[in-house]
């Protein structure tokens, strides 16, 4: 890394305006930040530290926790369910991040660039809202409907459709890997609206003349998409990917409603596993250990994402 780049890191970016500094220091400003810090301390830091402390204890949720050292942490390494739950997190990331982001990008570009131009903004907005609908729908309600669709036997809507083509009924949520696949499909459906809405908002920033100029130069839709759309909405892609990855790691509601971790624990995810240990087995110490690992993973993922994004932004600025 050259010294020029290093000095570039510390220099203020040209587009960020200078905030005028008041003479006499910034001591008074800290006073205004105190309530925020107090809340942060009470709501986040103290419970976090307490949670970490509980990982070294055996506790049933009442009376005094019993200190047991590293026992909970040792148990994690040989606990198959724990490792299964994190493996399933990878599938959740595919269903909640990878697929929705890629498909969302294409859908947003099509709605904005093709549908919006041919049928007007209202049609585009209407379609955007329909994609966003599953995000608004409470998962408890959606779960009931999904249950009807994938019911085993001849009553299930999906099995009825299959029967029209002479295919046998299948126990979608009762077998592996179909239970996990159903959960993943549901999560794609739930998540898709979020990137579509964010990407479409980002596309408003694109100067239409850019597209027109590219079209005049003979660029086809895919070339315009990759050269213009992708580069302009890159910050939004980062935000969507980061927030969706965190959501995928923490996913709880859909698993609780649709599969309860079954069949035979095959759709277990860390948050649901921690919940089971906390509330049904009353192994609060072990539940806290799982939650702490999950927290560490989320923090690491967030730091990596933010660093990668900053690095790309720096390179872009340096390029400019």
């Amino acid at each position, binding site marked *: 890394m050259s010294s020029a780049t290093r000095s570039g890191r510390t220099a203020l970016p040209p587009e960020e305006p200078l905030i005028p500094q008041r003479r006499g220091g910034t001591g008074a400003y800290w006073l205004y930040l105190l309530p925020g810090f107090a809340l942060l301390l009470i709501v986040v830091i103290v419970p976090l530290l307490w949670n970490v402390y509980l990982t070294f204890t055996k506790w*049933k949720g009442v009376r005094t926790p019993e200190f047991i050292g590293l026992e909970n942490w040792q148990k994690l390494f040989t606990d198959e369910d724990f490792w299964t739950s994190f493996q399933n997190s990878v599938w959740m990331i595919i269903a909640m991040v990878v697929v929705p982001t890629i498909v969302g990008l294409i859908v947003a570009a099509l709605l904005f660039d093709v549908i919006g131009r041919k049928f007007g903004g209202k049609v585009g907005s209407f379609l955007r809202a329909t994609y966003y609908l599953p995000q608004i729908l409470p998962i408890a309600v959606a779960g009931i409907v999904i249950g009807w669709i994938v019911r085993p036997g001849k009553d299930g809507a999906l099995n009825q459709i299959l029967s029209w083509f002479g295919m046998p009924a299948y126990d979608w949520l009762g*077998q592996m890997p179909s239970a996990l696949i159903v959960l993943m499909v549901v999560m794609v459906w739930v998540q898709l609206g979020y990137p579509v809405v964010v990407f479409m908002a980002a596309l408003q920033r694109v100067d239409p003349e850019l597209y027109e100029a590219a079209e005049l130069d003979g660029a086809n839709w895919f070339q315009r998409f990759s050269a213009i759309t992708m580069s302009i909405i890159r910050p939004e892609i980062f935000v969507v990917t980061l927030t969706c990855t965190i959501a995928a790691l*923490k996913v709880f509601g859909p698993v609780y409603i649709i599969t309860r971790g079954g*069949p035979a624990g095959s759709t277990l995810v860390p948050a649901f596993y921690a*919940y089971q240990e906390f509330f049904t087995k009353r192994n609060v110490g072990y539940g806290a250990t799982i*939650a702490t690992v999950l*927290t560490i993973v989320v923090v690491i993922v*967030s730091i990596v994402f*933010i660093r990668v994004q900053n690095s790309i932004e720096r390179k872009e600025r340096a390029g400019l």
Partner: protein
Amino acid sequence: MARNTRRTKTLAALAALTATGLALAGCTPGGSDEGGDGQTLKLWHYESEDSAMGKAWTEAIKIFEEETGAKVEFEEKSFEQIQKTASQVLDTDAAPDLMEFNKGNATAGFLASTGLITDISDAVDEYGWADKLAPSLQTTAKYSDDGVMGGDAWYGIPNYGEFVGVYYNKDAFAAAGLEIPTSYDEFVDVLDAFVAKGITPLAEAGAEYPLGQLWYQLALMEGDRGFVDDYQLYKDPVDWQGPEITSATQTLKEYVDKGYIASDVSSIKAEDAGVSFINGTSPIFVSGSWWYGRFVNEATGFDWTMTAFPGADLSLGSSGNLWVVPENAANKELAYKFIDITMRPEIQAIIGNNGGLPVAADPADITDPKSSELIETFNGILDQDGLSFYPDWPAPGFYDVIVQELQGLITGSQDVETTDDNLGKAYDEGTADFR
């Protein structure tokens, strides 16, 4: 700026992750005996208004207020709500004076062992409640210091009982030319006969309790009271590769293989299984007396009956949920008076005439013939000391383990031996603290 926003988001994510821990950790002991005015009874229960117990207790509240002049401050709770959060609330001065709570080692026993609910033995002696309760009903009301049921101290009083038996669609039997079985061999013959006619005879649900209860009933067919005491009261270690458990798991697998149970029940919930009996799809349903009232109202398209599991000396079942008095209750004397009213014949009769199983009713007060039939079956089980509790009771969280392991068995993803091994491992781990 953007970076700060993301940092805040990360912190918010951390807050969300630790919220569960906070919910448990935030409550600290702070009980108080203050606030007892002797005029207000703070009461929590989770029975729906139109259930047998709900109706009985509404009447009991009315009588209590008339007779004592005190006011009942009733808060309707859900079963889940009390189950999951009661232990934290009971440790504070927000505890009620009287509360309905689930019976068993992992529930009422746990509260008893932590000192969160009151040893009410003196009140039991004073009011003479023990005389009204059969011995197997008393087991779930009395706990040891470690919270194991069947102990010496009274921690709760049940008003009603429950058991698991077999519901038969009599019309479907008649149509198939079959008789209601009276022995286990006849039961199996009936299952074979239905399968031969292309009918899957048993309504089942692998995602919830019915399958686990059938599994335990099959273990009880091979076991005796000694097995139940070992399994439920930890008298001796349970052999998870022994004849009772092996037979139960093997037989359950055969039920699936032979088509007695549909192969696709692993994701079915109890409600769906019950409905398949109500709508006549399945002619036989092995489940609890808690369905009885509903079947009276809804399974009206055909004639049906319920018996204890054929050929069984032991049946799943117990007292119903318990009235418990929190240690931090402000008005314990009022609580005892209320419990006493719920044991009166007129209140017990309301339970009995609405599809419930009263524990201290005068048989002459039960006017409904269908209810009489049910109570007669229950009393038959009580007379032979046949109540054997439920398979998930011995260890906290064992319910989920049973569901998951039996799902593994019936979907063919694991064999009988592995299933028993896994169950045994979870059982031993979960019961270690009580031994």
